[in-house]
């Protein structure tokens, strides 16, 4: 490509009497280059949206963890009672992790339903005669992105339940069962 361009400058330069080193004499529209550029921009946008999505998931995770912390605090006495009755660590930790996971799972399902709904709505916008919308195209549900977000969501849900559960397991039954 570079060679061909160089050669064109030399031939045309000899013919029309200009310096072949002067690149501003004529312009070249390189379709390969421009499609590469366009692809790069698209990848950039995807990365940007991906980061926003990941941050949103994390914020959701922090929200779930917060709810779970509050619920552990509220149930401190019950946790102490369970320990007095002989609950092993997993009996204390398990339900809380499960609850955190359930919240994120429900949130994830709700998110998918919302996504499908939005895609259907966007699909109703007519594309004919509107170049901008025609360029953006119709959105579709991407199974691979769906699976990846579900996995990330699962991991976040586990963490969001695990840390509050660890707090619960460190409850000192002798302390919380003390009569006031």
């Amino acid at each position: 490509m570079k060679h061909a361009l160089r050669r064109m400058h030399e031939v045309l330069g000899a013919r029309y009497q200009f310096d072949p080193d002067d690149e501003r004499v004529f312009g070249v529209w390189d379709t390969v280059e421009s499609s590469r550029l366009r692809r790069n921009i698209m990848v950039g946008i995807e990365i940007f949206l991906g980061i926003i999505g990941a941050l949103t998931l994390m914020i959701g995770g922090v929200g779930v963890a917060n709810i779970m912390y509050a619920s552990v605090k509220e149930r401190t006495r019950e946790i102490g009672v369970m320990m007095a009755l002989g609950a092993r660590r997993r009996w204390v930790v398990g339900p809380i992790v499960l609850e955190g996971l359930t919240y994120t799972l429900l949130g994830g399902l709700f998110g998918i339903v919302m996504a499908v709904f939005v895609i259907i709505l966007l699909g109703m916008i007519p594309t004919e005669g509107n170049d901008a919308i025609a360029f953006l195209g119709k959105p579709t549900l991407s199974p691979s992105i769906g699976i990846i977000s579900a996995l990330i969501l699962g991991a976040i849900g586990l963490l969001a339940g695990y840390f509050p559960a660890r707090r619960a397991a460190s409850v000192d039954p002798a302390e919380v069962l003390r009569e006031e």
Partner: protein
Amino acid sequence: MNIFGRGRRKGNGSNGNGAVIWMKDIRKVYGAGKVHVEALRGIDLAIAKGEFVAIVGPSGSGKSTLMNLIGCLDTPSGGEYELAGQPVEGLDPNALADIRNRRVGFVFQSFNLLPAITAFENVEMPLLLGGVPKRQRRRRGTELLERVDLADRSHHKPAELSGGQLQRVAIARAMAMDPDILLADEPTGNLDTSSGGDIMSLFSALHETGRTILVVTHDKALSRRASRVVEIRDGLIESDQKSATDSSPPA
């Protein structure tokens, strides 16, 4: 009617005298350095199977701390403790949880039933934690609630029960795993005289079937029913007397 069963399986301790609770020079210190509180300063205590012991003393004397140590809810700072012949020192949290599940039944002043589940499910909880199969849990839970005259309340939530009923459910729950000892901390403290009397009668009945019972109490009426009264003051045992009126533990 002896549906609460009696100490099965559990062997005699290495302390050689078959005591259910055997403590030597037990100490408990809270905090560290200059700001520490010595809650217990050297307790020697042996309680034989079938005794009904009342632990009395002013508030802050260390009796609740002693109860927590006996029930393995807390670990001593020093001294030796064997529960049903098993040294408790150095056990990990899961092992201590198993001991609390199988060997100790707790009854609290404020009942401490789980509010979201029914009376029956509360009684069932230690069995569930102890891995008892469902059919046995059903049978045992029903028997226990019948024993405390609450069979007709088994599907009520704690909020729908009176104080005396709550404490009876708590006692049924404490007996669920047929423990070596029943530990009660001021069990009549939140009850009116009549309900308190029911609870005392229940303890007496359990004692007659050979259960080992320890109650921390200010209630003179309750401590009078005990076969032995241990008085604690400033972290030490001040007196330890067999009750004159009591029969010795049944053979």
